[in-house]
């Protein structure tokens, strides 16, 4: 039987096998996902060595607590696990480059889209563009670079209440627009 599996289905199968403590499946999972997760970590911690250490820690967590991870959503679960590791690191140790410019640290990195389809991406882009500049900026700083509320306050020079309100309303408007 030949079934053409999508990347997501492949990950689901690998994840199910990892739950059974299959080391080969774990290695395949690493080979298929390490580059994107490494990129995700670099964007938050802005340092390749720290990102590599966190990547190692993250994959070991994946192996040891895979039992807790949902088979259906392995990619989202792994992304959030890595993001949380990076955010915890930044909260604990501070940022090496508080105001880095991406172009300085990511010169040769390639980009790829993760969103499911071109239609989804177009909808998301349209909805996100409909937010005010301030809301877009606050959400991006938090999500892409793992900034805390306090760091966004410092970066955008607005009161904490305003920043929280921008983020909360921005997310609500984004969801309303996507669901409409």
């Amino acid at each position, binding site marked *: *039987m*030949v*079934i053409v*599996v999508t990347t997501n289905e492949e990950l*689901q*199968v690998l994840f*199910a*096998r990892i*739950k*059974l*403590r*299959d*080391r*080969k499946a774990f*290695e395949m999972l*690493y080979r298929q996902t*390490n*580059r*994107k997760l*490494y*990129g*995700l970590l670099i964007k938050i911690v802005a340092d390749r060595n720290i*990102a*590599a250490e966190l*990547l*190692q820690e993250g*994959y*070991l967590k994946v192996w040891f607590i895979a039992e*807790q991870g*949902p*088979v*259906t*959503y392995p990619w*989202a*679960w792994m992304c959030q696990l890595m*993001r949380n590791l990076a955010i915890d690191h930044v909260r604990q140790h501070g940022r090496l480059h508080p105001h880095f410019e991406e172009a300085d640290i990511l010169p*040769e990195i*390639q*980009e*790829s*889209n*993760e*969103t*499911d389809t071109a239609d*989804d*991406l177009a909808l*998301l*882009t349209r909805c*996100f563009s409909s937010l005010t500049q301030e809301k877009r900026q606050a*959400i*991006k700083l*938090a*999500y*892409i670079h*793992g900034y*805390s*509320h306090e760091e966004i306050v410092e970066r955008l020079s607005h009161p904490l209440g305003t920043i929280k309100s921008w*983020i909360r309303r921005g*997310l609500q408007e984004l*969801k309303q627009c996507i669901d409409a």
Partner: protein
Amino acid sequence: MHRRLTPVRYSNPTIREHLVSQYLLGTLSLKTRRRLEFLMAQDIAWYELVIQWHSHLSGLEPMISDNPPSWVWGNIEATLSKQEKVHFWHRWWGNKWPKFSLTCAVLLFLFSSSMLLMTEPKIATPSYIAVMSSPEKSDYFVLMAYKGDKPGKSSMRLKWNARRNLSGANMETAMLWAKDKDTGQLTLLGRFANLQGPQPKLLTPNEWRSVKNSSELFITVNKNHDSTVLFKGICIELSSSPT
């Protein structure tokens, strides 16, 4: 069917949306995040919100990718190998070593040390796998079919998702079916209850062929194939070895 363990105050959809969106964004305090992760471990419905918000936010900017240093995988492998060795000795020496087990272990060492030291532990890999979901909730459990070394020795196992339970569901009469990928014909593979024992369910040659040729597996509430479908999942081939 699915028992909710989330406290009532977290059943408010607005609160749930807010918490999950802030969780994905990374702006929750550590204490609140830990609390939310505890709730997620009790109720997988939270993850369904997580996946929604992940898809909303992950498209905001193209993901970057880059090759990590090779030592990352090297260190991961070394850690896992070290852990396997520790487990090996725990298994053999455990907490009963002083008397009988010590003697047994010495004898075992004398007779099979070369085999133990030179043979890598084998992990059985399923030939087919199906992630089973109910109409309401996904990811309940996984069915795995293993090819036997001779006809009648193939088997099927069930692996539960740790956070799912079937309290309230009547599974006594539930039946497992395979749907042929070409003809759509249904083949009864037996009672679902037979999959829940400690031993894997052995498949007859006919049952194995049905699994091999199936597009999906599903479980109905009783022996009537038109009865309510409780769970279903696409049957995916993991190995392409001749069967």
